[in-house]
């Protein structure tokens, strides 16, 4: 039995991918649950408008983070700042009352704001000061329903799975069976092969996407108040990024097992660190940057924005641009590598080296 154990260790030390998983995964989980998994919100971006803005603003202490105080602006500015996501809370003051608008898509920020306001009201009442009537309106997600937040994110998850994991499996299967070589000799152009491999998954992912959105709307009542075309563009760009990832993974994997390992390493961090579950703004600043390189983060902002807030393109153009850039880079790289498989190359590394053998005596 000892011999078995020794053998297993020896094999393991040479299996880089499994080792990477063994090392990377615990570190990732540590980072996530140590630094990223926070629901508490320490700062709430806030804007205050209306004639009494200055006075009210004076009462707003941390956790409220006053981004702007503008007495000349009114409710419409407040709503547009909420819509574009630059603030979570917008206070609209007038001579006789205060209306606090909150962005219902930022669940934890809203909860923190509600708690802070209740605390302030208590303190004021205890202090005996006279306060104007304060009413709170939660926009976009009035019931603070978790499923309304999760489901738009889930759409991204589906696209991620299909795009990266399943596409790479499909291509690697061809490599494993040895048929890629044959395709290279048939009268196909490299583009025929690549697109032929990708298009089915593109179509399937799109169908899946529509299904999830429709089911979400019917079963959970998730609204879709925005522009379908905007959503479609965002979805397409994100899909191109994930498909490109899938092709890239397939070009460095020799078999399906390897491609699954690599795909997992791409997908799992995105599930945990892209803002799907834990808000990006709550993540410790040291690790927040990770979210900014994850494509899923940008798509979640697009899907939540369009579905719940009716975000116009003007609000999400940055996310669209980032996704477009990522798609260009990833797809470009993937195509370059894939073409090498299909075009004549004198630099194929061969698995069996040639060792001079002893001559029979």
């Amino acid at each position, binding site marked *: 039995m000892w011999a078995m154990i020794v053998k297993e260790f020896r094999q393991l030390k040479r299996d880089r991918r499994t080792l990477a998983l063994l090392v990377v995964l615990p570190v990732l989980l540590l980072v996530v649950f140590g630094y990223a998994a926070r629901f508490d919100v320490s700062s709430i971006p806030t804007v205050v408008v209306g004639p009494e803005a200055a006075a009210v603003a004076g009462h707003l202490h941390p956790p409220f983070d006053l981004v702007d105080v503008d007495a000349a602006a009114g409710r419409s500015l407040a709503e547009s700042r909420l819509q574009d996501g630059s603030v979570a809370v917008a206070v609209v003051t007038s001579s006789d009352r205060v209306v606090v608008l909150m962005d219902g898509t930022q669940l934890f920020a809203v909860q923190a704001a509600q708690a802070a306001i209740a605390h302030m009201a208590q303190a004021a009442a205890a202090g005996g000061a006279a306060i104007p009537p304060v009413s709170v309106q939660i926009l976009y997600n009035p019931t603070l329903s978790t499923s309304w937040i999760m489901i738009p994110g889930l759409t991204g998850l589906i696209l991620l799975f299909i795009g990266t994991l399943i596409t790479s499996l499909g291509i690697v299967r061809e490599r494993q*069976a040895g048929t890629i070589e*044959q395709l290279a000799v048939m009268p*196909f152009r490299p583009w025929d092969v690549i697109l032929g491999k990708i298009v089915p998954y593109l179509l399937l992912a799109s169908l899946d996407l529509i299904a999830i959105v429709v089911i979400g709307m019917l079963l959970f009542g998730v609204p879709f108040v925005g522009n379908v075309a905007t959503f479609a563009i965002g979805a397409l760009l994100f899909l191109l990024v994930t498909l490109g990832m899938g092709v890239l993974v397939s070009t460095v994997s020799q078999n399906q097992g390897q491609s699954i390992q690599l795909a997992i390493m791409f997908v799992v961090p995105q599930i945990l660190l892209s803002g799907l579950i834990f808000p990006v703004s709550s993540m410790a600043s040291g690790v927040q940057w990770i979210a900014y390189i994850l494509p899923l983060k940008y798509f979640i902002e697009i899907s939540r924005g369009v579905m719940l807030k009716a975000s116009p393109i003007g609000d999400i153009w940055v996310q669209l641009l980032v996704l477009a850039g990522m798609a260009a880079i990833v797809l470009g790289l993937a195509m370059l590598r894939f073409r090498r498989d299909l075009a004549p190359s*004198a630099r194929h*590394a*061969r698995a069996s080296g*040639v060792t001079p053998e002893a*001559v029979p005596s």
Partner: protein
Amino acid sequence: MTWGLEDASVAFGSRVALDHVTLRAEPSTVAIVVGGDGAGKSTLLRALVGLVRLTTGVARRPAKADIGYVPATAGLYADLTVDENLAFSGGAYGLRGAELSRRSAQLLERIGLGSARSRLGGQLSGGMQRKLAVGMALLHRPPMLVLDEPTTGVDPVSRAELWRLIAGAAAEGTAVVAATTYVDEAHRAATVVLLEQGRPIAVGSPSEITAGVPGALGVVRSAAQPAGLSWRWGATWRVWAPSRDLPAGAEPLRPGFDDAVMIAALADVAKERVDARAR
């Protein structure tokens, strides 16, 4: 305008996979490349069809649509049915509709799969898979057919049937180039190229190679290993004397093709040793 390789060499970095090989692919002939694992057979065929670029030398081949290629691994899709495999191959080469079904039916009859059209590729036996793969490559009647180890691992009966299929293609005018590790298959060829570590150590028809054996061959019928360059054959030893002086106890023997192959390999090793020392 003949196809083939002329003084072709392929180097992968510092490793020479093919060393000045000349092979002609002529219509109605079968050319066979024989060698063990790592000898360079696959590289030779891949250079011929254009999957690998030559470092030096010339490769001549017809257009992609005029080549039929079956790589060393199956060459068909395990999760498609026999019919679907043929449809894919046909479609790739522009065969459709009535012509495709006619040609498919013809080939399936020859292969013996006429009644198994809806069986999955992966469910066929090894021999049947190979026959289907060769059939797929022949669907569009390519002028040049290139097969990488078509019969490795296949049972002898399927092997004979495969060669019948291949011979049929040659009879119809196809230029066939095949690679194999089985020396006894080389008999089927009009031209043989024997490869060892990328070098062609014997070239010609089987009878030319057999007749061209240098030195003398002898057989020793005892269990003791004779002096000199020798190898076992069943319970006896074969011994080769390059200088024609057979050791004591050895009866002279007329070399057969297998012996010629062995002797060519031994001569090559001796030569490489000399060359290495000179370097």
